[in-house]
């Protein structure tokens, strides 16, 4: 077992180095000079330009810059943003809770709808229910989510006025930043109505971001359930006269869930990609929007550091999924 985990971990290190190299190169390949962007129409003189690039360390050869960057990373220092001049890590930590909150709510939405829908479709295989669940989930899977976001916002916020347009909480509530998670912070504050306002602000973005994972989960649950339901032990259980819902919930579901959990784990990357679009439409102050804007402003340290952290999160989650899977399914452990 430890050998398996160790082997997995050893694969991560070259990946990690590769990512630092890739992000470092990518952002420098993008044409455009951060100093000129900062100065705007006024422009800076040639001497001032040289002075600034010396200050930011851009005058050194690339391999030296890379070396500085990597040694910094190893010490947990991702550098400072060129624009706000604050540490990249600090900015990340202030924005990340917003993304996590949104992603978690989206995941919960996806699981709450996707899982029962998938089970229902499997149990009622071939019926109208099955077909409509499958149609809906495939539609969800095909959804251009930025458009979906606009549509929902147009209908529910602008026309019906049921949900707020954008942001994380109504501005009349003055919430202290304790955990960064608005749901928790609004509960901690003693302002009445703050929590429900935070919830209301989360509804549309969560639905939008959760749509594709929901579809994936529903489809996966269905096929996994179908496979389990045809196994002998289920037939035996049925033959023994156990109530049908007991068979489904206690016997079948437990086994069917293993691949589903894997799939949920693998949605993290998709959630983060989707967060870029969702955050852009709903003006959600998370890391997706932050990264996009930083690419536009050529904020090298932010782009390098931000992508690195995001990639690390995905690697870690994939690793955890792998290891869990290895524990659950010993066959995987010994292959390769």
């Amino acid at each position, binding site marked *: 077992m430890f050998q398996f985990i160790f082997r997995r971990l050893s694969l991560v290190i070259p990946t990690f180095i590769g990512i630092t190299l890739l992000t470092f190169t990518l952002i420098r390949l993008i*044409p*455009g*000079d*951060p*100093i*000129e*962007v*900062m*100065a*705007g*129409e*006024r*422009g*800076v*003189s*040639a001497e*001032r330009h040289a002075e*600034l690039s010396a*200050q930011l360390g851009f005058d050194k050869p690339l391999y030296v810059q890379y070396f500085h960057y990597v040694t910094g990373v190893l010490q947990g220092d991702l550098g*400072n943003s060129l*624009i*706000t*001049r*604050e540490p990249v890590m600090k*900015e990340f930590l*202030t*924005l990340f809770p*917003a993304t996590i909150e949104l992603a978690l709510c989206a995941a919960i939405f996806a699981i709450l709808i996707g899982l029962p829908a998938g089970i229902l479709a499997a149990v009622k295989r071939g019926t109208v229910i099955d077909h409509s669940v499958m149609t809906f989930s495939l539609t969800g899977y095909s959804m251009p989510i930025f458009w979906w976001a606009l549509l929902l*916002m147009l209908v529910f*916020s*602008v026309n019906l*006025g049921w949900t*707020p*347009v*954008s*942001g*994380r909480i*109504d*501005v*009349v*509530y*003055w919430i*202290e*930043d304790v955990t960064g998670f608005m749901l928790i912070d609004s509960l901690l504050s003693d302002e*009445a*109505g703050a929590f429900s*306002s935070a919830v209301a602000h989360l509804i549309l973005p969560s639905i939008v971001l959760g749509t594709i994972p929901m579809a994936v989960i529903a489809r996966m649950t269905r096929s996994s359930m179908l496979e389990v339901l045809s196994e002998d032990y289920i037939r035996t259980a049925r033959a023994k006269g156990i109530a049908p819902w007991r068979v489904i919930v206690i016997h079948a579901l437990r086994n069917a869930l293993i691949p589903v959990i894997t799939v949920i784990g693998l949605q993290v990357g998709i959630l983060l990609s989707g967060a870029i679009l969702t955050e852009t*439409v709903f*003006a959600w*102050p*998370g890391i997706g*929007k*932050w990264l996009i804007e930083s690419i536009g402003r*050529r904020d090298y340290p932010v782009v390098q550091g931000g992508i690195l952290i995001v990639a690390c999160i995905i690697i870690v989650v994939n690793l955890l999924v792998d290891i869990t899977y290895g524990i659950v399914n010993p066959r995987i452990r010994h292959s390769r």
Partner: protein
Amino acid sequence: MKTGLAKITLALMAAGAISTSAHAATTLVYCSEGSPEGFNPAFYTAGTTFDATSKNMFNRLVEFKLGTTETEPGLAESYEVSSDGLEYTFHLRKGVKFHTSKDFTPTRDFNADDVIFTFDRQGNKDNPYHAVSGGSYEYFTGMGMDTLIKEMVKVDDYTVKFILTKPEAPFIANLAMDFASIFSKEQADFYMKKGTPEKLDIDPVATGPFQKVQYQKDSLIRYTAFEDYWKGKAQIDRLVFSITPDASVRYAKLKAGECDVMPYPNPADLKQMEADPNINLMSQEGLNVGYLAFNTQKEPFTDVRVRQALSLATDKSAIIDAVFQGAGKSAKNPIPPTMWSYNNNVVDYPYDPVKAKKLLAEAGYPDGFSTNIWAMPVQRPYNPNARRMAEIMQEDWSKIGVKAEIVSYEWGEYLNRSKNGEHDTVLLGWTGDNGDPDNFLYVLLGCDAVGGANRAQWCNEEFNNLLLKAKQTSDKAERTKEYEEAQVVFKREAPWITVAHSVVYEPIRKEVKGYKIDPLGGHYFYNVSK
């Protein structure tokens, strides 16, 4: 929003607040277009940052009178200029209090030390604060203050003397700019002693009408009205910047009552805003100019007749309609009409392709020539759609045989390459910093700016001498005369096609009273009530 307010009112009533003067805390929500880059205005050049900092949190020695580009006393009650124009003596206001932040409580009022600290930090490389937080002061160096200020002398606690290296009339206007916002030296020393000097730039205390309470990046900034503000407390109790980058989302929030004031509406939404009974659509001519600069050091634009011909061949009214959707005014001078010394007697080049063709033939190009038009990749108030503007010009010029290719680069590249004069003609513009004509004419067209902001690479002795003369006297009437003359020279020489001055629109909710549009593009909330 409304229900929230109602709840607060109800709560107050339930608590038995009988006193008639008691009122619910009024909150004004401003849907800003982006996050501020930081909270020290001296580091930055973006209006978004200034709105969140200098305009509402800070004061300066002199300030712009709201709604105009003229200066009025700020933290300095008065000032005197020596006859040679080299010494400026400021008499400071007494009893001005600084804000209190979570970890710093000021023990003294504002005085001369704060003034000297503010400028010394930016100009003096030996100041312990100079290199803190990156240490680049774009405006301070950009306005040439580092070479201009020779010395600052503290005469007494409430008198400061600035000694300049040369007479510079726009100096006072410069001091009203955002980078000159006054910081507290006491706070700076406090953080320096604690070993965390960079905190000064994150949580500065200032003397302005609002103090920052909380900033959530990309989400919102909260301020409360400063009780001890020297001009008296603001009429609203709380001010919130709700950061909303998308203009149509801002409008949706304005309609829903989630914000009270929004900047930069979509031109497409203006008609609907005008018709909305809950919205008051305010507008004012902006202090900006959008232009096309000819590269006057490159053939054939070295010939003034070619420049004049292309000016004659460009149909500005089509541009105003298509690019500005009516929210712009055709420009004839490089400075906007709201600025003092604007010369209304200048006659613009009319749209006259026939005459243009003749001039071109005289210059030796009867069949026209091939050239390029650089179109900016970004949207700016002075040019909301450079690409479309370029397309219209391309079409107009083709009528006199000039074939223009439209070129665009990434914004940083664009600025850099045009600075180096790689273009034939380039679209760009300018938004005024301080309301002084020098800030347009000398910055954009002076000989010193060739290879920099002078994209026409144009150095005309007659024009430049007029500007230099105007810089050296502080007599406004005399300066006006010189600037007016300079505009005539400019028009005759035609280094630019002056395209348009845009109109600034600001929709606000009907409940908001006392809001004024700042011609310099800022957003002030001190005078606002609700």
